[in-house]
């Protein structure tokens, strides 16, 4: 069973398709990184899943049931654009209102539990408007976590956070999936951060899903390359091009792709009179994979 299964979903605004015949599959238990440029349709897709927008056509199933089914919806939590809290009410009151709406039995206990997960136990009485951006994002996640959700939908939860805020958010998300077994759909522009936690990726462009791939699959497909520096970069590049098929100069380094033994490269350069001052073995990351994919689509 999949947590989210979308087939042929479309949504237009004033005749322009924001989401165009989109298909999407999010397995249960996954942290699904949803990637795309600004205006590519990520937020619209998330709002459609959450029932905030009415689709033009297409089917959305959550855990095998229609997305409008109240039984499924009660197990969905979301943080879309903002936490959806009343600014003049305290953090506690905002959480209490959502707990009442969900019909939770032990409300006080449940609120303390989610505040502990987002590390805000001591901030319950602060007014929402007095919270920092990072705190507001965490309160949004606490709201979404109330009532034991099976699916969390998070729209850019790490945007605007400082390094420490990002680390805390990352730890919280990993906690949620590992301890509580939640499926998480998360969109973000900060691919480096997403790469650290996501188990699956979906890449959207102009409202269409152009690629869905698991992190393991991406890892096995990822090209290995060696980055190195020499005094004579051009000479070394010409020399290496005779031996290796793909050599590129990027960010002040020579990149030699599809190399399994970096030692052989170093030996080869030394034998031909080049001194290697720096060398490291790398794999193509999510960001490069994404950029390459986008470039291919652009060219196509």
């Amino acid at each position, binding site marked *: 069973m999949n947590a989210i299964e979308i087939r042929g979903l479309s949504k237009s605004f004033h005749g322009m398709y924001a989401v165009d015949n989109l298909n999407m599959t999010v397995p249960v*238990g996954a942290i699904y990184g949803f990637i795309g440029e600004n205006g590519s349709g990520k937020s619209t897709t998330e709002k459609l899943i959450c029932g905030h927008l009415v689709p033009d056509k297409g089917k959305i199933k959550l855990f095998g049931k229609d997305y409008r089914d109240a039984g499924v*919806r009660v197990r969905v939590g979301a943080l879309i654009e903002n936490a959806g809290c009343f600014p003049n009410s305290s953090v506690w009151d905002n959480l209490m209102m959502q707990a009442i*709406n969900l019909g939770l039995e032990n409300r006080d206990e449940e609120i303390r539990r989610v505040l502990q997960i987002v590390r805000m136990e001591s901030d319950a009485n602060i007014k929402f408007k007095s919270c920092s951006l990072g705190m507001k994002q965490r309160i949004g996640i606490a709201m979404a976590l109330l009532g034991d959700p*099976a699916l969390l939908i998070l729209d850019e939860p790490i945007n605007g956070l400082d390094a420490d805020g990002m680390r805390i958010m990352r730890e919280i998300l990993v906690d949620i999936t590992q301890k509580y077994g939640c499926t998480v759909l998360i969109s973000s522009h900060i691919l480096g951060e997403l790469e650290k936690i996501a188990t699956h990726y979906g890449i959207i462009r102009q409202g269409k899903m152009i690629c869905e791939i698991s992190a393991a699959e991406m890892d096995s497909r990822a090209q290995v390359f060696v980055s190195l520096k020499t005094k004579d970069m051009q000479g070394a590049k010409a020399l290496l091009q005779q031996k290796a098929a793909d050599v590129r100069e990027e960010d002040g380094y020579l990149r030699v792709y599809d190399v399994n033994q970096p030692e052989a490269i170093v030996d080869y350069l030394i034998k031909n009179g080049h001194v290697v001052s720096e060398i490291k073995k790398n794999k193509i990351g999510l960001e490069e994979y994404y950029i390459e994919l986008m470039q291919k689509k652009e060219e196509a």
Partner: protein
Amino acid sequence: MTASRELKFESPSFFKRIKGMLGVDFYRLFHTPMFYIFLCIAAFIPALILGTTGMENPDGTVSAQLYTNAWNAIAADTPLYTFNSIGEYANMNMVFIFGGIMVSIFIGHDYKSGYVKQLFTTHAKKQDYMISKSITCAFAMACMCITYLLGSVVSGLLVGLDFTVNAGSLFIAILSKMIMSLGWASLYTFLNVIFRKYFGVSIASSFFFGTGLPIIAIGMIFGDTSGSALNIFLYGSSVNACLSSNMMTLIICIVCSAAWAIIYNLVGTAILSKSDVY
């Protein structure tokens, strides 16, 4: 290691959903200052009606008193059906004008804060939202009627007005207006759902409809015979409940209020269901 969990999906019943939604709305009503501010406003309106008329002008003349009987601040002596005596509309009906503004702020904050997204992400349905907001705001307006009543008594005593009245008719008139709060709250909820993207327009439309001008205009177009079913339906208790009310007045108000609530809730739900949340 990822925890495995049992995935159970039990649909909450209509009553459980409504209970949750009403719980949120009442919690919010009692935990924000807005409700208490509007209760105070309602208590202060009769002071303006009864206190400012009859005061001495700067040139030494005294303006005519609008009412000599304090209970006229609650309701007119006889049912009002036409726009020929605007002054006599200055009674407990004013609560419905300010009540409309309160509903606009209450619903507007749902959308402005984004809280409505939290509601609709979970099991809440559009129908639940309409019903819950109508009931909560009706309760708030009924409470405003009570503080208005208290304000009228205090103001009447301070100004030294006459308190002679048929107690039964007065009780029925007040009860009828409180019951009609549900109809008015449903109308305002409907208006605010339509204009949810434009907070200013929501407030303006609530104020405009709260004054009763549109329904008075319709009544004038179709005739102002006091027995006309259309007139009675359009006016509801706003003008029908008066100091000569009887049990029939109460029944008419119950029927009108229920009819307004059902019609506006059904249309509002249909509009919300077919449109995006924001």
